[in-house]
């Protein structure tokens, strides 16, 4: 009798542990690359975000769509740790956004690539030098960019300076720079707003392909509704 009771409890304990570990494993898989919970942000007394929530899973793509002043860029800057929220929680790949600027910089270097609308490349460096610099700063090998540039159609522009690039080329170059660090989270701010339809389509395709190739999760902030064709998960924002 005693032996049977002992066997029963042993099996039960093993089942409990096995069930727990499955749950934990499943939960780990489900940890979003970017999560923002009840984030509030105000600038110069003006409330820009009031309790914003967002969770983007590994490999997912999200589109923050809204007019100017709706807080799209602010959301990206908060996600990148460039701004500090008034309240709420932000986490990157399960790691809460640190309070210290130094630690935030380290987290950003390790996991996040950012594509800005106008801040694309360092003006004094050639395209390939920009990529080398970005790689060095993120602690990645600073060579072997030929494939990346060829994929983005910039192989022939490697030695061009930023001012010598067209709008489309510059935007693709910004994508290349952001991808050099092989980021888990790729944030793009108005990547197509200055481009014509053909270029906007091409850049959107490139962003998605590049994110997929590098296993990056993509969050795009834009007022350009054309991107709805490419990214299904849309979060509509209204002007504050």
């Amino acid at each position, binding site marked *: 009798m005693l032996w049977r009771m002992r066997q029963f409890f042993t099996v039960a304990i093993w089942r409990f542990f096995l069930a727990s570990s499955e749950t934990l494993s499943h939960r780990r898989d489900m940890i979003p690359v970017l999560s923002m919970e009840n984030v509030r942000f105000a600038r110069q007394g003006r409330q820009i975000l009031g309790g914003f929530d967002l969770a983007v899973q590994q490999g997912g793509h999200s589109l923050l769509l809204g007019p100017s002043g709706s807080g799209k*860029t602010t959301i990206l800057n908060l996600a*990148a740790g460039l701004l500090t929220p008034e309240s709420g929680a932000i986490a990157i790949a399960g790691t809460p956004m640190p309070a210290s600027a130094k630690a935030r910089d380290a987290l950003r*270097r390790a996991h996040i690539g950012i594509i800005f609308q106008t*801040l694309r490349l360092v003006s*004094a*460096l050639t395209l390939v030098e920009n990529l080398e*610099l970005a790689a060095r700063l*993120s602690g990645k090998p600073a060579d072997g960019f030929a494939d990346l540039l060829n994929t983005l159609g910039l192989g022939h522009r490697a030695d061009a300076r930023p001012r010598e690039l067209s709008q489309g080329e510059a935007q693709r170059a910004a994508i290349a720079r952001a991808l050099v660090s092989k980021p888990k989270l790729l944030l793009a*701010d108005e990547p197509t707003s200055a481009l014509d339809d053909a270029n906007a389509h091409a850049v959107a395709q490139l962003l998605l392909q590049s994110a997929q190739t590098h296993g990056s999760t993509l969050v795009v902030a834009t007022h350009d509704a054309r991107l709805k064709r490419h990214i299904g998960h849309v979060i509509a924002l209204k002007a504050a």
Partner: protein
Amino acid sequence: MLRLAIAYLKDRWLVTAFNIALIALGVASLAVLLLVSTQLEKRFERDSQGIDLVVGAKGSPLQLILSSVYHVDIPTGNIASDSLDLLRRDPFVARAIPLALGDNFRGARIVGTEPEFLAIHGATLSEGSIFTTVGTAVVGATAARETGLTIGQSFAGTHGLGGDGHAHDRVPFRVTGILKPTGTVTDRLILTSIDSVWAMHGIASPDAAAGATTEGDQDHAGHAHGEEVLDRRDAPSPDITAVLVTYRNAMAAVRLPSAINRQTALQAASPAAETARLLSLFGAALDGARLFSWLVALTGALSVFVVLLSAASAREGDMALLRVMGATRGQVSGTVLLEGLVIAAVGALLGLAAAHGLLAVGASLFPTLAAVGVGPRLFHPGELAIAAAVLGLGVVAALIPAARVYRTDLAETLGRAT
């Protein structure tokens, strides 16, 4: 970050080149002044070593020193040769060496003197032998190189201390020795005996009547010119130009110059006092030039400051991007500091190179500069001090722009730029 700083400098190469040129100009002026003044001082010091007093004809004491010690000016006149005996008999005089000046060969001054002259400057023979008879000469290392004189070669002196006088061809000299370089005035002189100088001018030596022979007589027995020189009865009295005196003791410095100046028709001048007077005259001009040079260097630093400040504003976006890419505040502002430092370093290096280049050109264009020992090959520790000071200026000029970049609010910049 250094590569990035250099990339920024190359990106605005014209402004960078202008800034570098301004700093190089200041550094070059400062280095030239430093090198010329120190080389002059050292040369004066070396050339006057062992000579406490120069006795010569009345006139400018400075001119007497310049002509008899440094051999760069014309003498004040001649003095009777018995002045030498007078000085040698004086108990305060340890050594008295006569000089007879007034001729040259291809610009190298011919100095009639005694072999002891070589001891003053520590000159020794590189080859050959010292002058012993009338018409023989030894040549300083530089003079030999510049005139092309070699052992056994004969040459005729030219009247005057430049190269344009008439030639004394009646008693040609024969080179019997070449001196080793000494770094003193001896290097550029041709030394011979007093008797040789007198013979060259057709003046009979007091000893000539006693049967002295000339080199010409030895080489060409019965040569008409040699006999003519020695036999002249109406020749002027044998004079010398100056006497270099070394004191026997400290009391001599008090007694001898004043006694000579007061009681004789001679002039006594102290090389130390006259050189100090000359350097003090130079010194005022040098101070003025030095001040001007520092102003030029400061203007360069100010220009670097203005350029970097404006670059710091124009480059806000780049700096923000660098921060986003992972550069720290220190790295980003360090880029601006490095730009200032690189401009200053390149300017300092070019300035120092230009200074030595200028001295090389100056010494080849103006023989007087070379004659007093100014040349491009000497380096002075002060040059490093100038370079260090200019590097400091570069850093100071870049500090405010760098601090501005350091304090830049990333979020605010991104808010404006994106």
